[in-house]
């Protein structure tokens, strides 16, 4: 007799066999892509004006903060505008990943109840969508960078690893929050306050250097603080990031990703009965 291809045994809060899981996940990558594309298409991002909006939205956002800081606040430093837009756009990659991820599982009810697939695909596709929205803002920033005459150097290549860390952090947060929201549905209504607090606590509207040492030591608890600071140093000032900043964000990103994924994978077989 053949060996069984799959065996289903009672659920224990434990990890699924990782090799099989990853193999299945990889086999489903086209579905992740197509699923994300359809979600974007649903929000009209498939049309010309929809895509224009992807560029216009970050521009308007930075315009609003420009008004706030430079017109009302009375500052006139081009670097600070560059800093504001660069960090704001990266922040939106993470916060879009969070807002997309929070309902990834709860709104995928039909799919989850009727098909067997690695559930982690759903929060992953939320991050893919956030990434898709991030790309046009990168182009907008490149134009701003050129227009206001910010410096260039080879150090800017640091942007690549920092971006990868940001993506990992967004993914980890998306996976974690989608899982939490299955058990506590009101998390999704609290999320806007969380992202708003993160926005103000992170060096976006101000620069990390202007913060007192006392507050800086508290900011170690903020996963985004040194990430956004490093990003700003690299893409705005064309400097190398500090080792501490890089390590701080990497450790946070890895921690959130590992905790989130562990939490998710060990619970995901329980989702079908919780929806």
């Amino acid at each position: 007799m053949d060996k069984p291809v799959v065996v289903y045994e009672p659920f224990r809060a434990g990890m699924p066999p990782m090799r099989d899981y990853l193999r299945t996940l990889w086999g489903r990558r086209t579905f992740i892509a197509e699923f994300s594309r359809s979600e974007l298409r649903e929000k009209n991002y498939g049309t010309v004006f929809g895509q224009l909006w992807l560029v216009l939205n970050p521009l308007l956002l930075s315009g609003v903060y420009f008004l706030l800081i430079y017109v009302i606040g009375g500052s006139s430093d081009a670097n600070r505008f560059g800093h504001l837009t660069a960090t704001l756009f990266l922040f939106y990659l993470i916060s879009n990943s969070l807002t997309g991820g929070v309902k990834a599982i709860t709104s995928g009810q039909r799919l989850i109840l009727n098909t067997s697939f690695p559930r982690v695909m759903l929060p992953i596709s939320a991050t893919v969508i956030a990434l898709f929205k991030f790309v046009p803002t990168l182009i907008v920033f490149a134009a701003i960078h050129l227009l206001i005459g910010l410096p260039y150097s080879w150090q800017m290549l640091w942007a690549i690893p920092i971006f990868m860390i940001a993506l990992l952090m967004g993914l980890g947060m998306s996976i974690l929050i989608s899982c939490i929201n299955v058990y506590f549905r009101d998390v999704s209504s609290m999320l806007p306050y969380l992202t708003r607090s993160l926005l103000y606590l992170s060096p976006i509207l101000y620069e990390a250097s202007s913060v007192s040492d006392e507050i800086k030591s508290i900011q170690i608890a903020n996963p985004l603080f040194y990430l956004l600071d490093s990003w700003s140093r690299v893409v705005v000032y064309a400097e190398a990031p500090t080792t501490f900043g890089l390590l701080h964000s990497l450790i946070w990103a890895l921690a959130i990703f590992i905790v989130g994924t562990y939490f998710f994978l060990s619970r995901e077989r329980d989702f079908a009965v919780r929806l």
Partner: protein
Amino acid sequence: MISLSDFKHEHSPHSIAVSVKDLGLTYTTSIDKKPTLKARLKSLGRGKKHTRIVNALSDVNIDVHYGAVLGVIGSNGAGKSSLMRVISGIVPPTQGRVEVYGSVSTLLALGVGFNPAMTGRDNVYLGGLAAGMSREEIDKNFDAIADFSELGDAIDAPMRTYSSGMYARLAFSVAAVVEPDILIIDEALSTGDAKFKEKSLNRIKELRSSDRALILVSHALATIEDVCNEVIWLNKGTLMARGNPSEVIAQYRTFVNARKSASSDEDV
């Protein structure tokens, strides 16, 4: 969680396809439809229960062999869909063990993964990928799917413009081209008009083969009797009978009628 293209091995007829041993399934679901942190905090320290236990299946033993077409009957809430979900790996069992010897494709609901904002064409890809097909497989089968659905030019219109019959037809067509080792169909046959219903039934009959196992859940007893070569009857999560379709269906009918007359007596 096995994609269809992963396993394409030969099965000798009558070898086992699905083995269900002492299967028990109890759901622990939250009492509130939507569990919230707020509710949890409010009841902190009051010893209030947040979950309740639902017995969906108990001590179910079934072997499904290759070449078999197994019909599953029973009244609403008998545990039919739960059993299918356990076999397809969507819900983990609470007790016992389920062994599956091949690739499983499930058709538990129509149009899973469809996005109404997209065109029929896009949804063929979306639904096919959701069902575990690869893009190449869908490319290869696209014309067959479109033909089978009889949608004509409407395939390029957004799905929100479809009538419910059109929607169901396309959904069934996508599912019908999948050729897995084990196919589980849960009440998905009653779609579209009479003509399409017959067409889908014929497709199911075509799918019967000695190296495939089909599991069919339906309330349409005549269809079950026509298509299946074995039937199991579930009631309140337990296996009441299994065997020859006409015999089991006759037993089930007697049971349902007996219960009906008993309840009508109560009314008097």
